[in-house]
């Protein structure tokens, strides 16, 4: 099973890119299955349903959506297997800039909106810097100069990546994404490891404390001045 993980902030264009790409994959005799992870609700499953491929959605509810998708990866692979798919594509919720859900043997694709400004790639974090491919969307809305600067800033954050310009509205460039997915020879194993560790997050907020004041909190905590400590027993 080939595993493709698509990460990117909400509205970056992940679903739009995927729909265009999956059409091409289907036309090229690939059998894709899609998993969409979201927090509370998602419409993306309806958009994927138009493609008549196996679609599974997972809602993470109280769990960090990135942690949820990592924790449930085995199950997703089983779902794809059961549906005779050969390529499992996972679209993440993309809410946390600290998590990067890519595993060693997946094709990690980061989708980033070029209208978010040239300072954004530097702030995007590991889901950009650990990606194999960075897909830049909405280039139709900015000037050629801004597109070129944006590209340079992506390369500063991830010098090794392949950058692809794709228009989510008309699918221009999606053929390149499909080509890279088909050319990837990595296969998912039972012993997948994350490329980047998930952030430490064991504190009273994680288990539902709603009171804000510092005195109510225990766990591994970090102060505004950067000092990090364990508070508790």
């Amino acid at each position, binding site marked *: 099973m080939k595993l493709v993980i698509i990460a990117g902030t909400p509205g970056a264009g992940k679903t739009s890119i995927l729909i265009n790409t999956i059409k091409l994959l289907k036309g090229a005799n690939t059998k894709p299955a899609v998993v969409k992870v979201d927090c509370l609700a998602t419409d993306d499953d309806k958009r994927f349903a138009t493609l008549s491929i196996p679609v599974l959605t997972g809602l993470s509810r109280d769990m960090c959506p990135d942690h949820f998708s990592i924790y449930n990866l085995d199950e997703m692979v089983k779902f794809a297997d059961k549906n005779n798919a050969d390529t499992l594509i996972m679209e993440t919720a993309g809410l946390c800039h600290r998590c990067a859900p890519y595993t060693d043997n997946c094709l990690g694709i980061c989708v980033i909106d070029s*209208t978010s*400004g*040239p*300072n954004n790639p530097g702030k995007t974090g590991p889901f950009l810097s650990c990606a194999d491919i960075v897909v830049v969307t909405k280039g*139709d*809305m*900015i*000037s*050629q*100069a*801004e597109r*070129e*600067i944006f*590209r*340079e800033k992506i390369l500063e954050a991830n010098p090794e990546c392949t*950058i*692809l*310009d794709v*228009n989510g509205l*008309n*699918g*221009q*460039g*999606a*053929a*390149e994404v499909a080509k890279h997915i088909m050319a990837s020879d990595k296969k998912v194993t039972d012993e997948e490891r994350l490329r980047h560790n998930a952030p430490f997050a064991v504190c009273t907020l994680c288990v539902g404390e709603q009171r804000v004041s510092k005195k109510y909190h225990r766990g591994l905590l970090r102060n505004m001045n950067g000092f990090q400590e364990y508070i508790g027993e």
Partner: protein
Amino acid sequence: MEQIKNITIIGGIDKSGKQENIKCFDIAQGEIIGIVGPTGSGKSQLISDIEQLSQKDSSTHRQILINGEIPSSELRNNPRQKMVAQLSQNMNFLADMNVRDFLLLHAQCRGKSMKNIDKIIYMANQLTGEPIKPNDNLTILSGGQTRALMVADVAVISESPIVLIDEIENAGIKKHEALELLSGYNKLILIVTHDPVMALSTQKRIIMKNGGMTDIIDSSPEEKTISTQLSQIDQTMLKLREIIRNGQHIEGKDLNQIFPELPVNKKITTLVNY
């Protein structure tokens, strides 16, 4: 950088999915081609296909060849190797930075000298009214100032053998000066335009309809003559525009250049009809 002798546009499909009339069209170095057609007919899309060096992977299924060959993906993507400069129809900058930093960054991307920054701002200011200052934030520039800066940036920093220009006549900048800046010697130029003066200044015109290239026509000898007359009318219009912009009244004598022997009333009706 590889030398560009010509590009080839291989026709794809129009918005209804039908084959385009024009199956294959070569444009040679030094040619100036117009792209005309109603709004929404796919002019900007054609420009975008050329900028992206599309390989049947856009909605139009067009393919673009350079010197008769499929361009490498390096040529398609790497700004340092890019052979296409594009002035898009876009009228805004979204980047939150000042004019100088923006130009410096862009020069760096294109691997160009960073010494010319003040010259670029100076050139932009020749095209617009109120001057752009190096420390102005890009997002506060007016439509005309933005357009002028885009033109100067494309002309100097993106300086390339292929130049694509989408509706330079908008935003009230000095279009003839702008075109001159962008054109340069022996370039291959495509101009999208709704302006008769601009359209007649090209050698051939691609006619767009419903997303497809329906025809290509050569400008006729008669059009060459008309083009000269139109330019005169245009010069007068531009002069009148400057007078109005400067808060003055227009007088009969301001029209005298083009219609020396007509009485004033008639001159105005002629202009209105035009």
